[in-house]
């Protein structure tokens, strides 16, 4: 029924060429929230209008000709051709227009490149398939994954994406920046090439493994700005959004303090109920494991092994802990996972009905003995 309605709505929408139920519906480039993005928007509009103008002139001439100079109207073909004057004119005029475009464009290239004299630096690392943010000035460091609601919906085709606010454009931990401060970004990647894009900031920049790229921004207006990875980076390329929250300086300072406190806090290793272990374990699974092993634990044949019924998962628990911490040539090592999250995860993957496993046991955070020595 819903589909039928949408199908019916289509021609109407097309006829109007505008309008939609979605509030943030847009046909054009955003102006963005930085001086730079405004400059690029103006440049975009300038060139678009130049194109529209040339288009009207050329197509106007052509359609005049098509209408008037047709055989059915008895028009006789004239046999003129080769006119050097005309050909020089239609070479020189476009050249002048291009020079006119190149001047503001050159200025914008220079502005984009001006990464010097920044007041703070954030290192952004693209990974399959999330972003890793490191504030170089204060030591804040966290991963930013697609939010759980979107994760669930895109993995279960029967769920309606429209029921999720900011579907596929929301993350668990957004990047927080202060307004009115020149921020330098350093981009790199851990595995394949990614590209970090927030349209409101006016640019995207590739994150290349083994190399560092620079870009800068100066956000004028507080707000939440959303973007996505724009360089094909594998299976879940479409599922690693970027969310930037720009705050006033005092709010930002408070956020830094709270985040640092939390980051430096030792993980809570107290015992949990089985339900609590399972519930938290699902979140840990959705963040760290689901991209490869899938929401039903079946993995992807030929690519990623199944957890469902896997002897490794349901077998000896100590070996499982060691395996997860050590990783393999294909699986990253999850050494940095705190003991509480590891306990929750292990309880979940051994017992989750969603993964088809039911060992019937659990492990508490304080029972996880280090199986992997970081110094090794």
């Amino acid at each position, binding site marked *: 029924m819903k589909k039928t309605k949408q199908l019916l709505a289509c021609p109407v929408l*097309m006829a109007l060429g505008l309008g939609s139920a979605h509030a*943030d*519906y*847009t*046909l*054009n*480039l955003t102006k963005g929230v930085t001086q730079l993005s405004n*400059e*690029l928007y103006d*440049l*975009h509009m300038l*060139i678009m209008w130049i194109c529209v103008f*040339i288009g009207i002139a050329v197509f106007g*001439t*052509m359609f005049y*000709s098509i209408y008037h100079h*047709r*055989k059915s109207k008895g028009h006789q073909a*004239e*046999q*003129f*051709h*080769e006119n050097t004057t005309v*050909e020089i004119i239609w070479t020189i005029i*476009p*050249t002048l227009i*291009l020079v006119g475009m*190149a001047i503001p*464009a050159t200025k*914008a*290239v220079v*502005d*984009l490149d001006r990464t010097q004299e920044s007041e703070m630096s954030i290192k952004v690392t693209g990974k399959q398939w999330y972003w890793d943010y490191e504030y170089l000035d204060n030591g804040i460091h966290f991963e930013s994954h697609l939010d759980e609601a979107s994760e669930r919906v*895109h*993995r279960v*085709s029967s769920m309606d*994406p429209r029921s999720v606010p900011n*579907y*596929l454009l929301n993350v668990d931990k957004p990047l927080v920046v202060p307004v009115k401060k020149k921020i330098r970004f350093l981009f790199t990647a851990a595995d394949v*090439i990614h590209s970090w894009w927030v*349209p409101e900031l*006016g*640019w*995207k*920049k*590739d994150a*290349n493994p*083994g*190399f560092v*790229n*620079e870009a800068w921004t100066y956000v004028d207006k507080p707000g939440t700005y959303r973007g996505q990875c*724009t360089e*094909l*980076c*594998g*299976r879940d*390329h*479409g599922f690693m959004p970027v969310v930037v929250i720009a705050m006033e300086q005092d709010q930002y300072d408070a956020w830094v303090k709270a985040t640092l406190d939390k980051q430096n806090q030792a993980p809570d290793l107290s015992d949990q109920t089985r339900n609590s272990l399972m519930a938290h374990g699902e979140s840990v699974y959705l963040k760290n494991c689901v991209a490869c092993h899938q929401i039903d634990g079946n993995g*992807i044949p030929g*690519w990623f092994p199944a957890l469902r019924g896997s002897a490794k998962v349901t077998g000896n628990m100590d070996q499982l802990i060691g395996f997860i911490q050590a990783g393999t040539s294909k699986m990253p090592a999850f050494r940095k996972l705190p003991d509480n999250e590891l306990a929750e995860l292990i309880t979940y993957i051994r017992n989750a009905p969603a993964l088809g496993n039911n060992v019937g046991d659990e492990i508490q955070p304080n029972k996880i003995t280090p199986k992997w020595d970081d110094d090794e």
Partner: protein
Amino acid sequence: MTAVVAEHDDHHDHHDHGPEKGILRWIITTNHKDIGTLYLVFALAMFFVGGTMALIIRSELFEPGLQFVDPNFFNSMTTMHALVMVFGAVMPAFVGLANWMIPMMIGAPDMALPRMNNMSFWMLVAGVLLLASTLFMEGGAPAAGWTLYPPLVLQTGKAFPFAIFSVHMLGISSIMGAINVIATIFNMRAPGMTLMKMPLFVWTWLITAFLLIAIMPVFAGAVTMLLTDKFFDTSFFDAAGGGDPVLYQHIFWFFGHPEVYVMILPTFGVASTIIPVFARKPLFGYASMVYATGAIAFLSFIVWSHHMFTVGLPIAGELYFMYATMLIAIPTGVKVFNWTATMWKGSMTFETPMLFSIAFVVLFTMGGFTGLMMSVAPVDFQYHDTYFIVAHFHYTLVPASVFILMAAGYFWLPKWTGNMYNEKIGKLHFWLSAISVNILFFPQHFLGLAGMPRRIPDYAVQFADWNMVSSIGAFIYGFSQLLFVYIVIDTIRGGTGEKVSDEVWEDASKHSLEWTVPSPAPYHTFTTPPEKIPTEHF
């Protein structure tokens, strides 16, 4: 004595002038017309294979959410759609036209290297089949995009070496085809057919052939480096071993940018051939069209990094590649103005080939406009890798190259078959295609500007409406192409029943030599060179 001579002549005719019987005719043929037909039929088949992949993509994108395919298979589809369309459909279709038309246009009896001609076709078939077979391999077909960027492409499963070998085969096939075209044009022109009297289709193909010879080895080199990185521990593209993943992009686009012109230059040539015939006027500026084609070909070699503005180029690189890319607008503008001036004060009629050609001029120009917008490096930091670029290159490929291939089909089918196609269905095919192609691709400009990245299987809900419109356009466009298959088959089997003249189109023989031979063109044409060379474009 006389009788003996006559008998000898008969024998000679029987031995030399007819094709082999049965299937063997097509396998071992060295006849340029047979090989041209093979290329064209193969290209049409691959057009539908690639089109089916496009419809799988558009079905998945019809609504937000993942409904039909796994994201990895989706990525395989975008990759294979591009590779099949580029290497299996558009390029072979133009090679097919070159085979059929170049000898007939320059008054030559055949291509210069007929056996190599046969080999290059069958190598193409082998290459494309090998590529298609990767769909059924463990880990799936390549899914890193048709650009095959490392390190991502190195994560391909079992298909990886097979895909690379298929690229090698396609490359060898293209190079052989290109050598053949050059050898034919340089050595086999009829007396009096000077270079500057050649039809523009021949000129554009000559330049295209040089592009192919220059770039295919570069591409082969790039993918071979991928191969050794994966299997022989080299580190061309791996920073850990002193390499650079961006190096691949430079090499690839040094091939890739001229490659897209390989698909558009012959398109220009066909348009410049068709428009004067139906405007009943000589092409406005023959010489400037030749020079513009040469200029575009030259520029194509020095603009490659405009595909990589966001990759982290130094500022001097950004500026140089921006200026160089903007320059392309000048020779391209010359071409569009020329076609317009050719129509001006003509005596136009609007048969299907002309309709497709006019739509080509208009819609290709729109693709050119978005190209100009993206040449401006700073704004490309917004456009890059969004649906805006998807809209751009599809405008320059579908309503440009593909429309012109359709136009060429309608234009020359009567010459090839001796029968007239059904004009009513032809026009229906045109109008359905011209309208639906815009429903399909125009909304993608909006999607890109609004922030939708390309190559994603699922998207945020604010992109839902235009994606749905685009998908509807895709299905209308896709299914209307079946009309073309119907028309081709119908025309081969007799068409309208009207017997076409040698000239087919009014005064066409003033424009080019192929209209001076009988319709259908006999198995061998110009066994003796033509006496008169059309010079109307002078």
